[in-house]
């Protein structure tokens, strides 16, 4: 590994200042960053270790809002009775990430800000990949099993985060700190696709960090669920995931269905959501919503299986919600 400067700030202000240097990168649990550095995928001259900052690992009820610090560990979120009760989809998603060891290191902030797992991006020799500041996407003519069926443009890597999918269904927002202070970004605008900027996956500027994730009172306590399909039952990234929440008893007022690992950002199945509003979760309604969830999918050469997978998972997620 190339040598680098290691810094350990004790405050958010200090952290964002340290991040303003060229090729500085924030370190949470390190489960993604260390791999990137070992493989020299992205130039890294300075590591800003956020773990020295006190008070960023909370999981609490903040006047009705579920507030989770960016440094809260995925394992703690998965086993939190508060999260399981108020936002079950998030607890389920956190519990399905990787392995116990990684959940004990990995943080919520890091899980949202991780880089893509595209097997071309992760191959150190592909220096001309878009995400390495190149101008080529190998997935278009190569093996696209992992790649996007929605929203690809130039780059077809998918966002790999399970918690991002769950939080999208829970209407969460992300609190971001930077040199000019703090801002709160709705989760729907937190992630950016390649049409905006293929070099990054979120709105975070290089000198910004996530400090907290907030799930609003309106989304809390309503039935929600997260399901994930992957070749292995653990230590695997989703090939497709779904986070779903319905608000309203008997008749659905609001439905949110977020799909993971099918697009460069968490993908909201808006047609299915609109279709469900005002209806109840009867079997035929669920079946129609599941069909609509895959509407607009444009598979590449080897990922057409994601279309039935989306439909199958959405059907199972809504069926699970109907049973609540």
């Amino acid at each position, binding site marked *: 590994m190339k040598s680098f400067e290691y810094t350990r700030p004790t405050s958010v202000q200090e952290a964002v200042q340290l991040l303003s240097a060229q090729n500085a990168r924030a370190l949470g649990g390190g489960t993604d960053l260390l791999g990137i550095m070992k493989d020299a995928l992205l130039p890294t001259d300075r590591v800003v270790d956020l773990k020295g900052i006190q008070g960023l690992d909370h999981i609490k009820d903040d006047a009705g809002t579920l507030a989770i610090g960016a440094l809260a560990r995925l394992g703690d979120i998965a086993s939190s009775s508060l999260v399981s009760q108020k936002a079950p989809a998030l607890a389920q998603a956190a519990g399905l990430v990787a*392995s116990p060891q990684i959940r004990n290191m990995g943080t919520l902030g890091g899980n949202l800000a991780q880089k893509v*797992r595209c*097997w*071309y991006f*992760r*191959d150190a*020799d592909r220096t001309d990949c878009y995400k390495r500041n190149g101008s080529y996407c*190998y997935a278009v*003519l*190569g*093996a696209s*099993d992992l790649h996007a069926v929605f929203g690809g443009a130039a780059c077809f890597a998918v966002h790999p985060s399970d918690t991002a999918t769950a939080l999208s269904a829970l209407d969460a927002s992300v609190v971001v700190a930077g040199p000019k202070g703090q801002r709160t970004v709705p989760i729907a605008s937190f992630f950016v696709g390649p049409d905006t900027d293929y070099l990054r996956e979120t709105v975070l500027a290089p000198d910004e960090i996530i400090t907290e994730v907030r799930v609003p009172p309106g989304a809390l306590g309503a039935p929600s669920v997260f399901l994930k*399909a*992957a*070749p*292995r*039952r*653990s*230590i*695997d*990234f989703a*090939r497709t995931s779904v986070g779903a929440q319905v608000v309203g008893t008997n008749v659905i007022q609001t439905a949110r269905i977020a799909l993971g690992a099918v697009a460069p950002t968490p993908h909201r199945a808006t047609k299915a959501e609109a279709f469900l509003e005002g209806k109840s979760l009867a079997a035929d309604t669920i079946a129609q919503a599941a069909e609509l969830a895959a509407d607009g999918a444009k598979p590449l050469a*080897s*990922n*057409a*299986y994601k279309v*039935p*997978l989306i*439909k*199958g*998972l959405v*059907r*199972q997620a809504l069926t699970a919600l109907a049973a609540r």
Partner: protein
Amino acid sequence: MEQLALVQGDDAEAWAADAVLTIVGRPQRRVEGAAKVTGRARYTHDIRLPGTLHARILRSPHPRARVRHVDASRALALAGVRGVLHRFNTPKTAFRGEETIFREEVRFVGDEVAAVAADTEAIAEAALSLIVVDYEVLPHVVDLEEAIDAASPRIDEKGNVLDADRYERGDVRKEFAAADVVVEGTYRTSTQLHNSLETHGAVAVWDGDQLTVYESTQHVFGVREGLRNALHLPLANIRVLCDHMGGGFGSKGGIGKYTIVAALFAREIGAPVRCVLDRHEENVAAGNRSATLQRVRAAGKDGRITAIAHESWSNVGQARWVADPTGPTKGLYDVPNVLAHAHRVLTNTGSLAAFRAPGYVEGTFALESAIDELADGMGVDPLALRRRHAGSQVDPVSKMRYSLKRLVDCYDIGAEEIGWSRRARGGLRGSAPGLRRGLGMASQLWSGGGTPPAYATVHLNPDGTAVVRIGTQDIGTGTRTVIAQVCAEELGIDVRGVRVEIGDTDAPYAPISAGSLTVASITPAVRLAAKDAREQLLDVASGVLEVGRAELRVEGGAVVSRGARTPIAKVFEDLENYTVIGKGSRMPNPDDIVLKTFGAHFAEVEVDPATGMVVVERVVAVHDVGRIVDPLTARSQVEGGVIQALGFALSEERVVDKPTGRVLTSGLETYKVPTVRDVPRIVVRFVDVPDTVANNVGAKGLGEPPIIPAAAAVANAVANGLGVRIRHLPLTPRRVLDALAAAS
């Protein structure tokens, strides 16, 4: 082929089926277990000799290219770099039929181009990027089916597709014409990567003209032979050591290019040199199980299988041999008409290496899928159909009798355990709405009879403890433990009083730990050495105790005669350092008898047609391998084999990028070895009848049998549950969903 067998001494009578044994056949904890769990066990990767230099290998970024020029001047100028080897400065060193370790035409991404030795691994790694290579890039092909296609680049002057083996008995053509039912299927298996926990590697050190090599290997004597050929040294000048070893699964049968690199640098620089592969290199350049394309036709008439034709194509990379998938088709069932034809296909990918039951895993999947398809076509239960062809005691290929065959017993035990009578055509309802459940089974055929030569010595110490010395190696299978058991049993001492010295070419020769031949090759020699020691002890005891030799026996560490027990230490008390040295050698296998192992696996699966997920709930693995020496070790062999087979069946697949020839799955994130959560309940059962014809222990090999039928059993269970047959492994969600979409 006539085998020359030089017989040394007399064999012992085989332990009878009803012999009362106190150590052999009883569960024994691994004798090296404490050393392993406390971290004291030393592996090749742990060897750090004073002043060790580290070598790293520069590998081709192109799937096919000519190396025109190598400029290493900038690498050599880097502080800490001690040498660079490449094709223009390296002496000719024979390696697997080629004259040199650095090819003029590199033939896959990862092919060796140059090597650097440096003070640290990091410096060596940094130096690699400073070597400038001028490549003339040539057209390439990496995919098996594209390589077969005549329109693809021809990468070898003999062509890409080479005939490997052809076999015929009876008249297949006639029987297909006369059949009631004929089924035909094209089956595909994917390239499986070994992923031994310990990667390939060697440490070499010279003392004058004496070379010592520490190597992670399945055959220390094979490495010695490879070094002799490469470096033209007398055998007496080479010593190869392998104390503990982190798995090989067939891929560590001899030297690697890294061994030669380490030995050449160590000689040139005069320091120990360590060259070990990282995980990426391991998965690109250290071997694999070939991807296959197989066509099977099977015919049935009057409730019996009348003919099978099996043609196969295997992606071997550049290898000069093929792991023939048609072995089970020729030998597993008593079918009168068989045609088998294997092809070797060259591509610009890393070459195959033997991989736990090479060919048989791939071939059993195709054959046993086709047998199930035929049974469906004939409207008979697939197990009932197999029973009609499994009882013969004569090998259909050689027409000679088997020493012992209990395949039908395996069926009985397995069918009872899995509840085969529940199996229904079209499958069963799953545990939740929408889920489908299926049952499937498949049979196993493999050799495992062992082979001479193998030699052992047993030193009986004056205190009644013993040291066994034999040049085998324990590749993680428990070889040390079974040696200690057989020695203690025959000698009449406690197993804890036996120290096992292995992994050293200065010990008596033993064969490669591969082909399921270790136990059946070495334990008969160990037993004879222990017997020799015991008899010498009794000679001495007879004189010391003044009791007739015929009245004495050794039991529990003491010489026993008519109720009197004299501890061995007491017998030797006044003899100072008198030492008993027993010698034993492996006797030839019986003439005109075929030694084989048999088995059957039964699988119960649940499939989710909505997500394509296959969950294996239970595998019942039944094997007929003669006497079980250690039930614990045997059971873990079977569990490991089943798990590795489930990876092959469900998730493991090397993906190569066709345009660039690069392996996309060289790491353990993308190359999906099963995790502990993917492992089902595995029920292990043995027929456990000693094969007293085979050898004096009555044991046969169990390394490979448990990986052979599991994938086929799972595929048959999935087809049973889903009602749709998927003829392409692994059965990933993608393949299941694609097959369901195509079927609807």
